C-alpha cells in the first residue's frame, strides 16, 4: 500500500526564501516535555493541558539568584503571586527561598494558607481594603503604600492598634524607557515621593523602612534598572539625612523579560533579552555607587515572568481544519485566547508532536471559542496536520494560567512534571459544579 500524504499545493513565493532557509520545509518539533510524551500527557490528563516543569523553574531561579547573590550579600526574592498563583508553583518558589509578593487580599490569603508568615509577605497594589490592610499590619506584612489615602488608612489603623507601623512607599520614575510607568506610587522627579515621606514623618504614626519601585514589564534594557536604583538610592540617602529614618530595604520590583517573542520585534529573544547577569550588574553596581550608609540595604526583587514563563507549556489538540477563502488553512484547536491571555503581545513558539510529511503552507491557528477574535497565530507556516495532532505552545508559564478565563469551555487541568519526570496533577479540570459554584436561582424563576 502506498504511503498517504495529504494533497498539498503552494504557490511559490520567492520573497519567502531567505538565508534562514525555506519556510516551506522547516518544522519545529517537540514530542515530550522533560522526558514525558506529549500524547501521554493529553491522554492521561486531557487536552488542552497546562504543563509546568519543576526542573526549568529551579534552574532559572538558581541562575538569577546566583547572578545577584554572587554580587551582593543581601538579596531576597519575593514570588510574584499574580504571575502564577497555582499553589504548587508558589510552594516551589517558597521552598527555593522566596517570600511572597501579593497585590490583593485574595493573594495575601493564598500566601497565608500556604504557610507563609505575614512578615514574609510584601503587600503591593493600588487597592488594599482597610480591613485586610489591618490584618496585614497585625501580621507584620511589608506594606507598600501606593497613594495618600492609604497613608490615612494606615494612620487610622496605627491609632486603632496603638502601634507604629513600619511601611515602605512605592515610587515611580523616569528611567528612560517608554512608556513610563507612572500609575503606581508617588513620582520621584516632581518631588511627590519626597512629599509623601514628609507627610508620613509629620504624623509620626508610620515608620518608613523601605522604598519600592516597579518600573515596567518585559524590560529589554537592563540600564533602566541602573537608573531606577540610582534614583531610589538618592531618595534613600536624602530621606535618611532629612528625617532620620533608617531605610532597611529597597525593592526593585519585577519586569525582567523572559525568552518570549514580542510582537513587532524581529530579533529573536536570545539576542534582545538581557541576561540575569546584565540585570544583576545594573542594579548591584548602582547600589554600591550610591550607598552612603555603613550598612548595605536589603535588596528585594519581585521577579515573576522571567522565572516562570519558560517553565510553562500549553498542550493543545487539532480538532479540525478548513480552507479559508484567502487560501490559508485554518486549524481549529481545543485551546484559544481564553487560555492564552498573553497571545495579544507574544508570538509563541509552536511545536509539532512529530515530523509531518509534505510541504508547509500558510496557516492560521484558531481556538474553540465561537468568537472571531479567537486567533492564536494569524500566519504560520505548517505542514498538513491531522485531527488529533498535539501542538505545544510556549512559553506560557507567566500570567496565562492566572488570567485564563472560564469562558465557553471549562478551564483545563494543570500538571507539574517533577525533577524525576513524574507527573503530578496540580489543578483539576473545571466542571459544571465549579462553574455553578455559588450561583443562586431566585425562587420566582
Amino acid at each position, binding site marked *: *500500500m*502506498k*504511503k*498517504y*500524504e*495529504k*494533497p*498539498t*499545493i*503552494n*504557490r*511559490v513565493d520567492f520573497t519567502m526564501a531567505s538565508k534562514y532557509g525555506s519556510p*516551506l520545509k522547516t518544522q519545529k518539533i517537540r514530542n515530550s516535555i522533560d522526558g514525558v510524551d506529549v500524547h501521554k500527557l493529553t491522554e492521561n490528563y486531557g487536552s488542552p493541558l497546562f504543563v509546568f516543569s519543576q526542573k526549568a523553574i529551579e534552574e532559572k531561579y538558581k541562575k538569577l539568584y546566583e547572578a545577584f547573590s554572587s554580587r551582593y550579600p543581601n538579596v531576597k526574592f519575593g514570588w510574584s503571586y499574580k504571575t502564577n498563583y497555582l499553589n504548587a508553583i508558589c510552594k516551589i518558589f517558597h521552598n527555593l527561598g522566596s517570600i511572597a509578593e501579593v497585590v490583593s487580599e485574595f493573594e495575601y490569603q493564598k500566601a497565608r494558607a500556604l504557610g507563609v508568615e505575614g512578615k514574609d509577605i510584601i503587600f503591593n497594589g493600588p487597592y488594599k481594603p482597610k480591613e485586610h490592610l489591618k490584618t496585614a499590619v497585625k501580621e507584620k506584612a511589608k506594606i507598600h503604600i501606593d497613594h495618600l489615602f492609604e497613608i490615612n488608612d494606615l494612620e487610622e489603623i496605627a491609632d486603632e492598634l496603638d502601634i507604629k507601623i513600619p511601611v515602605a512607599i512605592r515610587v515611580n520614575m523616569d528611567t528612560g524607557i517608554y512608556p513610563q510607568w507612572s500609575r503606581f506610587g508617588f513620582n520621584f522627579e516632581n518631588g511627590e515621593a519626597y512629599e509623601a515621606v514628609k507627610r508620613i514623618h509629620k504624623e509620626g504614626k508610620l515608620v518608613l523602612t523601605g522604598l519600592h519601585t516597579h518600573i515596567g514589564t518585559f524590560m529589554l534594557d537592563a540600564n533602566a534598572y541602573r537608573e531606577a536604583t540610582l534614583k531610589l538610592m538618592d531618595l534613600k540617602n536624602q530621606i535618611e539625612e532629612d528625617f532620620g529614618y533608617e531605610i532597611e530595604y529597597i525593592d526593585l520590583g519585577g519586569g525582567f523579560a523572559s525568552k518570549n517573542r514580542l510582537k513587532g520585534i524581529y530579533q529573536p529573544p536570545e539576542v534582545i533579552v538581557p541576561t540575569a547577569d546584565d540585570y544583576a550588574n545594573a542594579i548591584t553596581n548602582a547600589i554600591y555607587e550610591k550607598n552612603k550608609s555603613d550598612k548595605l540595604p536589603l535588596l528585594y526583587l519581585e521577579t515573576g515572568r522571567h522565572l516562570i514563563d519558560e517553565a510553562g507549556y500549553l498542550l493543545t489538540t487539532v480538532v479540525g*481544519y*478548513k*480552507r479559508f*477563502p*484567502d*487560501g490559508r*488553512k485554518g486549524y481549529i484547536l481545543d485551546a484559544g485566547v481564553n487560555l492564552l491571555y498573553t497571545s495579544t503581545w507574544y508570538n509563541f513558539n509552536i511545536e509539532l508532536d512529530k515530523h509531518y*510529511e*509534505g*510541504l508547509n503552507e500558510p496557516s492560521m491557528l484558531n481556538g474553540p471559542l465561537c468568537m472571531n477574535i479567537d486567533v492564536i497565530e494569524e500566519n504560520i507556516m505548517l505542514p*498538513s496536520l491531522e485531527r488529533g495532532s498535539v501542538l505545544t505552545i510556549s512559553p506560557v508559564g507567566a500570567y496565562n494560567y492566572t488570567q485564563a478565563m472560564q469562558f465557553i469551555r471549562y478551564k483545563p487541568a494543570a500538571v507539574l512534571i517533577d525533577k524525576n519526570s513524574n507527573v503530578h496533577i496540580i489543578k483539576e479540570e473545571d466542571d459544571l459544579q465549579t462553574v455553578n459554584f455559588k450561583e443562586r436561582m431566585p425562587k420566582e424563576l
Partner: protein
Amino acid sequence: MQELLKLVIDENDIAFHPSTGNSYQLNDIAKEIINFLKEGKDKDTIIEEIAREYGKDRKEVYIDVSDFLNKLKIYGLI
C-alpha cells in the same frame, strides 16, 4: 478547468502556469489528483480511487480532497 489543463508539471514536482507565470509546488498525491482532473474524473471518483489506492477511510479522504480542490479554486486553476 481550462487553466488546470495549461499546468506543466516537471520531475521536481514544480508546476508552471504559462499564462500567469505562477509556479506551484506540489506533492505526489496533489499531482495525482491534478492528473485525475485532467482526465475528467469527478470529485467522488477521485475520492474513491485515492481511498482505495492508499487504504484510507473515504470520509477522511473526502475532507482532504475537498480542501485541495478549494485551494485550486482559490488559485484560479479550476
